[in-house]
């Protein structure tokens, strides 16, 4: 009986539960004994010229080691000056330097509240806060560009020498002919609001520069990429840099690599020769860590009166914040996944990316795909309402059939495998959809104050979008029979140590307890890619599996030599990890024996697994909400999902990812939004105001099983990390609108706060009365 597919509790947990994790702020290594603390001085203003920085008073404050500004960065090569025509190309990494380039410390301009302007180094963090207040910066305010509309229309440019605030534009959606012949056409503008990823551990880094070598601990999702970035930024050979990811308290895409603040810590450590540690506060995190989402979308959908969708148009404007760190990549993914799981013959997509005086946008759980699903799922419900058909029916009529895979969409995505209608039907059955509709009808009939709303989302999403980059694994079986896995993946809560050990046990019969998994240290794992984009099991896990098979082949040769038998006559008993002549357990040799016999070469395998293609998990979510029509308050009462990510190695871990994803998805639908005023001042800059979701706002979830393997990798596994978020948001938003659609409401933008819901209900009532 293979351990794969069974419920295994995590090996990571005892330490985390009894001693706590070791996050950057917990490191008590000798190199950091004398570490000074870094406190950043940040811009309090959304858009301004810097006309002077006076650090005199700060430098005199108690415990101050140094105060650093752009003036001190004479040891770095400045970025190349902007060249004419150095545009931002969608899908390409941002050009270093160039018209839209972002400095490390602000030079002569600040473009968002929270932008780092100076660094104060003190003996302890308390002194750091005091001293930072004493740095005096003169700002000459400039008009703030807030909101996509303003960014497109205003004359104020964030970057001189650019022609507008639009840094990428791609696609055109002016040809209306695709909607000819449609019985019904709906059109809607939709806001996919700005969110703060808000991992429980904010950004943090520690650095020591000694004897020409940099040792750098950072709360990151990929140590190797971080080393590459540091090498470029500091002009250091990668061999002179060691990056270590200690325990990381969540990332959700916002800790991919290291950002300017974190990089500055490394720079300052080299500049001053003092070991340094930086741990941001939550208020800094809410404005200093990248935000997510922030798109405005216009959807147009047309089809027949019996529910067949013929044409879909998605026009996206992406607010990328003050600096286009992701260039056009997020809306590129949104457009790629625009049609979701539906078979739609005519599709048009277009996108623009604009800069605004707000925190820069980057990946956040789903990274462009939640936006795609939210748009089309809203459109489907609007279309269903327009033709008077149940939205589940409309979905079923248009889902791609199971015999159509691999299926290439008009937007250029090739879906590997899927059974979309089954997922939909499973969820409807488990939820008791018919009964729920009947209850809804009863409440509407009675005119209850508290109405019931049902919302669906059928989704497909792309995981391991960068499959070509692959992932690495090095597996070594030692003379004592134990094994060590060096993985290029970089877990920050996902439980890879448990899952990778399960894979080794399944393949080699070495018990999990004897398998050590190591990640996140570039000295030990110089070649690795990292954990984001739901890629780790299908790339990193498969690499471990392939390395295990490689080691098994090596061991067979060695065992054959030991047992003086033909390789073909040998078998590995994976129940007890014993190599033996087939059918003769008395000849059994342990892994330790075989490894010892392997001599100097040992039993070691290194694998880079880079499949040709990403994979496409899918599913359906159903949300049931109760809406108080007098106050607008929404309560999520049930959330039922089928999330199919192919082969499940450990259901415990897969469910955990789904739960966490669902919660963040629900949070976007109901509560969270990062808001600025017209001057670029954040209005949700602390957790008192940013409405992060708690246990009190959520029910327990109802998760259904579904495994449709992929043939892209030998495990048949797809990615599960972001699927929950992608499916949950539109299901809940649709449910809220559904709850009050009988009152005339057709759309409510997210988050569907009580104020928004009440406003929609009031407006519908008023226009209904007129």
């Amino acid at each position, binding site marked *: 009986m293979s351990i794969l597919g069974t419920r295994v509790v995590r090996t990571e947990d005892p330490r985390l539960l009894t001693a706590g994790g070791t996050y950057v702020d917990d490191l008590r290594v000798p190199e950091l004994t004398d570490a000074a603390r870094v406190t950043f001085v940040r811009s309090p203003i959304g858009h301004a010229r810097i006309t002077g920085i006076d650090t005199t008073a700060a430098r005199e404050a108690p415990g101050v080691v140094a105060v650093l500004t752009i003036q001190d960065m004479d040891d770095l090569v400045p970025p190349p000056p902007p060249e004419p025509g150095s545009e931002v190309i969608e899908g390409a990494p941002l050009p270093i330097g160039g018209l839209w380039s972002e400095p490390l410390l602000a030079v002569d301009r600040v473009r968002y509240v929270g932008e780092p302007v100076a660094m104060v180094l003190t003996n302890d*963090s*308390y002194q750091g*806060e*005091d001293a930072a*207040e004493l740095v005096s910066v003169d700002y000459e305010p400039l008009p703030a560009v807030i909101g996509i509309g303003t960014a497109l229309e205003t004359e104020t440019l964030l970057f001189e020498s650019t022609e507008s605030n639009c840094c990428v534009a791609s696609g055109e959606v002016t040809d209306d002919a695709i909607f000819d012949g449609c019985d019904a056409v709906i059109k809607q503008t939709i806001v996919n609001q700005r969110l703060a990823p808000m991992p429980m551990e904010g950004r943090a880094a520690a650095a020591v520069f000694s004897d020409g070598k940099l040792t750098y601990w950072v709360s990151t999702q990929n140590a190797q990429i971080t080393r590459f970035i540091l090498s470029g930024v500091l002009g250091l050979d990668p061999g002179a840099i060691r990056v270590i990811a200690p325990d990381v308290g969540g990332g959700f895409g916002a800790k991919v690599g290291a950002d300017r603040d974190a990089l500055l810590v490394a720079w300052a450590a080299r500049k001053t020769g003092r070991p340094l540690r930086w741990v941001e*506060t*939550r*208020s800094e995190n809410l404005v200093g860590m990248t935000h997510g989402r922030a798109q405005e979308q216009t959807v147009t959908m047309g089809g027949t009166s019996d529910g067949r969708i013929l044409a879909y148009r998605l026009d996206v404007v992406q607010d990328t914040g003050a600096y286009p760190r992701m260039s056009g990549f997020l809306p590129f993914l949104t457009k790629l996944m625009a049609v979701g799981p539906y078979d739609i013959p005519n599709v048009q997509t277009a996108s623009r990316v604009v800069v605004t005086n707000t925190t820069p946008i980057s990946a956040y759980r789903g990274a462009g795909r939640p936006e795609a699903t939210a748009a089309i799922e809203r459109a489907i419900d609007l279309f269903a309402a327009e033709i008077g058909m149940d939205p589940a029916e409309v979905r079923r009529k248009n889902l791609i059939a199971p015999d159509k895979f691999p299926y290439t969409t008009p937007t250029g995505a090739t879906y590997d495998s899927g059974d979309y209608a089954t997922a939909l039907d499973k969820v409807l059955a488990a939820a008791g959809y018919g009964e729920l509709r009947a209850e809804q009808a009863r409440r509407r009939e009675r005119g209850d104050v508290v109405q019931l709303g049902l919302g669906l989302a059928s989704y497909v999403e792309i995981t391991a979008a960068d499959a070509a980059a692959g992932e690495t694994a090095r597996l070594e079986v030692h003379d004592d029979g134990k094994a060590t896995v060096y993985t290029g993946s970089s877990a920050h809560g996902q439980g890879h140590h448990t899952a990778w050990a399960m894979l080794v046990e399944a393949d080699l019969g070495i018990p999990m307890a004897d398998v050590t998994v190591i990640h996140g240290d570039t000295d030990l794992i110089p070649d690795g890619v990292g954990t984001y984009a739901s890629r780790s099991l299908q790339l990193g896990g498969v690499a471990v599996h392939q390395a295990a098979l490689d080691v098994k082949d090596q061991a067979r040769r060695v065992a054959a030599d030991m047992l003086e038998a033909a390789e073909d006559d040998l078998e590995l008993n994976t129940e007890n990890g014993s190599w033996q002549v087939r059918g003769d357990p008395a000849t059994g040799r342990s892994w330790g024996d075989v490894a010892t016999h392997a001599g100097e070469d040992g039993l070691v395998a290194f694998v880079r697994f880079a499949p040709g293609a990403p994979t496409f998990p899918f599913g359906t979510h159903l949300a049931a909400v109760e809406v108080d029509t*007098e*106050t607008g*308050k929404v309560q999520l009462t049930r959330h039922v999902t089928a999330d199919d990510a192919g082969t499940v190695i450990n259901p415990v871990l897969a469910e955990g990812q789904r739960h966490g994803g669902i919660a963040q998805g629900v949070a976007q639908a109901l*509560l969270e939004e990062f*808001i600025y005023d017209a001057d670029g001042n954040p*209005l*949700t800059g*602390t957790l008192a*105001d940013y*409405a992060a*979701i*708690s246990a*009190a*706002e959520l029910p327990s979830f109802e998760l259904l099983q579904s495994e449709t393997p992929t043939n892209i990798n030998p495990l048949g596994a797809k990615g599960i990390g972001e699927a929950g978020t992608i499916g949950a948001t539109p299901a809940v938003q649709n449910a809220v609108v559904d709850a009050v659609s009988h009152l005339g409401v057709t759309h409510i933008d997210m988050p569907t*706060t*009580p*104020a928004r819901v*009440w*406003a929609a209900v009031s407006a519908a009532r008023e226009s209904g009365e007129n």
Partner: protein
Amino acid sequence: MIPAPFTYKRAWSVDEALDLAVQNGEEAKFLAGGHSLLPLMKLRLAVPEVLIDIGRLGELSYVRDDDSQILVGALTTYDELARSSLLAGELPLLAHAASRVGDPQIRHRGTIGGSLVHADPAADLPAVVLALDATLIARGPGGSREIGAGEFFRGLFETALQPGELLTEIRIPKPRPASEWSFQKFTKRAIDWAIVGVVVQGGRVALVNMGQTPVRASGVEEALAAGAGTRDAAAHAAEGTSPPTDINADGRYREHLARVLVARALEESAART
């Protein structure tokens, strides 16, 4: 994240606390549970130079039956109020409201005195003591004085306390019947401050977050006294109020909520009797 530097002093008696306040003047603040004051200090919105810790004054933590009234010591925590069997019988409104403040950790530390003196119009207990027609006892260097709840809350974060005065006790006449109460706290999330709150005890109605102080819904009270039904009385809920506009709600929505919640509160209160 870290308060600006200050000097910490600890009082072991009320007299000592008052003396320390006199000695340190305007730059000193009393520290009780610290869950109104310390959050402000951590964001450096408040920067007192001296903190006088009165958290050890056990003599100010009590809930007592005084025949026709209940006496509550200012340093009684929300949790102690929520668990008090005396309050459960005589003043369930106060016990219930205290059980809804913040989360368990906050309720273990925060005190009724701290809440009243902080005088945040979005806080619950100020409106509760207003609805209960409480009398607040303040002790200063010159002695004790009584301040009616109606006079206590002067403005945004402003009370009738003079510098150096310490709130020591809250005296609440026992309502009859005790069971004719309702507490409607409307929030976006469970942890949030009330967007609007309504407190009802008998014929008295007070509102949370409908102005710069807790306010009595006198229009509602008058209508009830004149014999109006619940819904009709509730229609007056927003009269005389000046509700704030913030990221959660504008004034118009708050007025609407006040009417809806007052109606519900009156219905619930009547149903209990």
